[in-house]
């Protein structure tokens, strides 16, 4: 069935350099909305993004952006915006000149207005006549995003956009990605910093060692892996007695007693989560804290990496 124009589609895409396989048989379809491409350094995130952006031909498989291949096809950039991982910007240009140049190169009907809108969107209006060389790392990043957004692309690819940003700058960039996606664009950003992915996109594509290890909402990904025991940190008024009671519970695989409370490995997530309150009531023990210590994206990620 022909690739639809509204998506980014990959079918069995691989990329290798000699015998080093950077991306291994990845298939995915990206629709409108924000997706986080997550993986450790060297997992192939940048290689995948570069293939999507038409800067690297797939060694195998089929990749289309808005229905057409991106390799050796400059027309794709009418609908595609890219923020590459290299942070270099022409320091001698002001932000205005830099984004205006991008607008002109995209052959927009009214480049000045588009530039003003893009810079406004990135809240750079008070600094846009200063040379980029004098910008801080975060402001340079925002200027690059403005240049990638000036032609209002339907597909926006960002490689490590949050790298080196402090919390305030990160929060602002997240709002922007959401606003862009809400306007119907496909936004894909790569990252290995977990706070970002958890905050911005519920949907995640996790890459590990070149392969697509998981895709979808990361909490649902978590649930899909229920076959692996979950780890809970529990602090209560009588840890030892609670430990004894929990060991009797079939859903519990193991309990460790430490000074800061119990570490419970639950064999099956669902049954344990329901059983715990019941046991605590029965034993009349006061529980002050129950924390799924392996539940954040970090653990999903570490679990996938360990496979």
């Amino acid at each position: 069935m022909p690739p639809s124009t509204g998506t980014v589609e990959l079918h069995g895409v691989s990329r290798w350099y000699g015998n080093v396989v950077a991306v291994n048989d990845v298939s995915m379809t990206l629709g409108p909305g924000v997706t986080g491409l997550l993986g450790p350094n060297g997992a192939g995130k940048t290689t995948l993004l570069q293939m999507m952006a038409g800067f690297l031909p797939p060694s195998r498989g089929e990749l289309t952006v808005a229905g057409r291949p991106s390799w050796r096809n400059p027309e794709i950039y009418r609908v595609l915006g890219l923020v590459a991982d290299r942070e270099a910007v022409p320091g001698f240009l002001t932000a205005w000149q830099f984004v205006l140049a991008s607008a002109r190169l995209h052959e927009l009907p009214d480049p000045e207005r588009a530039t003003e809108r893009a810079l406004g969107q990135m809240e750079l209006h008070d600094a846009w006549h200063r040379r980029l060389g004098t910008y801080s790392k975060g402001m340079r990043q925002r200027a690059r995003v403005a240049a990638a957004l000036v032609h209002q692309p339907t597909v926006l690819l960002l490689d490590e956009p949050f790298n080196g940003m402090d919390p305030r700058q990160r929060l602002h960039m997240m709002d922007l990605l959401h606003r862009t996606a809400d306007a119907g664009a496909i936004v894909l950003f790569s990252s290995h910093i977990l706070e970002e992915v958890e905050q911005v996109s519920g949907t995640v594509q996790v890459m590990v060692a070149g392969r697509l290890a998981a895709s979808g909402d990361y909490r649902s990904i978590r649930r899909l892996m229920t076959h692996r025991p979950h780890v809970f940190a529990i602090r209560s008024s009588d840890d030892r007695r609670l430990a004894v009671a929990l060991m009797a519970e079939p859903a519990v695989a193991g309990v460790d007693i430490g000074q800061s409370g119990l570490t419970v490995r639950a064999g099956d997530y669902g049954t344990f989560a329901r059983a715990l309150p019941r046991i605590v009531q029965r034993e009349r023990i006061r529980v002050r804290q129950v924390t799924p210590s392996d539940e954040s994206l970090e653990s999903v990620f570490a679990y996938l990496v360990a496979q």
Partner: protein
Amino acid sequence: MPPLIQTQSLTMRYPSALALDALTVEVEPGVVGLVGANGAGKSTLIKILLGLLQPTAGSVRVLGLDPARDAEAIRARVGYMPEHSSLPLDMVAAEFVTHMARISGLPRAAARERASEALRHVGLYEERYRQIGGYSTGMRQRVALAQALVHDPDLLLLDEPTNGLDPAGRDAMLGLVERIGADFGMSVLVCSHLLGEVERICESLVAIDAGRLLRADRVASMTRRRDVLVVEVDEGVERLAAHLDELGVAVRRSGRELLVPLESDDTFDLIMRAVAGLGLPLHRLGQRRHGIVELFADTSAGRAVEYAQEADHGIG
């Protein structure tokens, strides 16, 4: 034992910006966090401590010495890991660290031994004879740490040591810095804008913003408890909320979580009873910790930053 670092109205004025503004702080030995947003003056302070930069005004003492006068004595006893990994990519790691040891004054044999030991301590023993260019970002950061450690300094200055690392790399690096502070018997100044890290591995903390001192204190005293109870159930959030409402408990919904004011310890039992009664799967229960991020909340342009209570997820 003189204080690790002492500054007296330290000021650094660049033509285009005021990097440090009359900073007066005293830091005791141990693992110290230097926290601030990008451009808050962290790197400038480190360069002044190393005598690489002359401050416009004010005085500074490192290990009791004055960088302006005896910079070389300080540099012999300080290890520095710069923010951007500036390493010769076509050199073998062991040879590079040995070379750096000799530049710190160690004789050839001692330099070679300590280089191999330093690379072992940072977990690169097997790869120490490979070229740095072939290393991952995480491994390069560890080589940068090894060269700062190799000449057995009394003080380690680490500028954003987890920069560009993935979670596994970040945890490994933080664990390493924590172990260095504890077992190696040397003080460590860790520069970072990732607040979760500082909280986790540092004993005391210096927070600066736009070159001015926000707060300098022991970490423990800065993360006070805040009396809100967070409960999250995997299913039936509305049923639980309605039930608590009937019991007259002021419930507030925040995403997948329910926030309940913690009047007394009984509230724990009340919530547990409610969840057990409805037979719901309990996913999370706990007290919302007051993270250091609030420090910056009031200084950011008016917007309270209820941003990522890192203290709740994972670190817990």
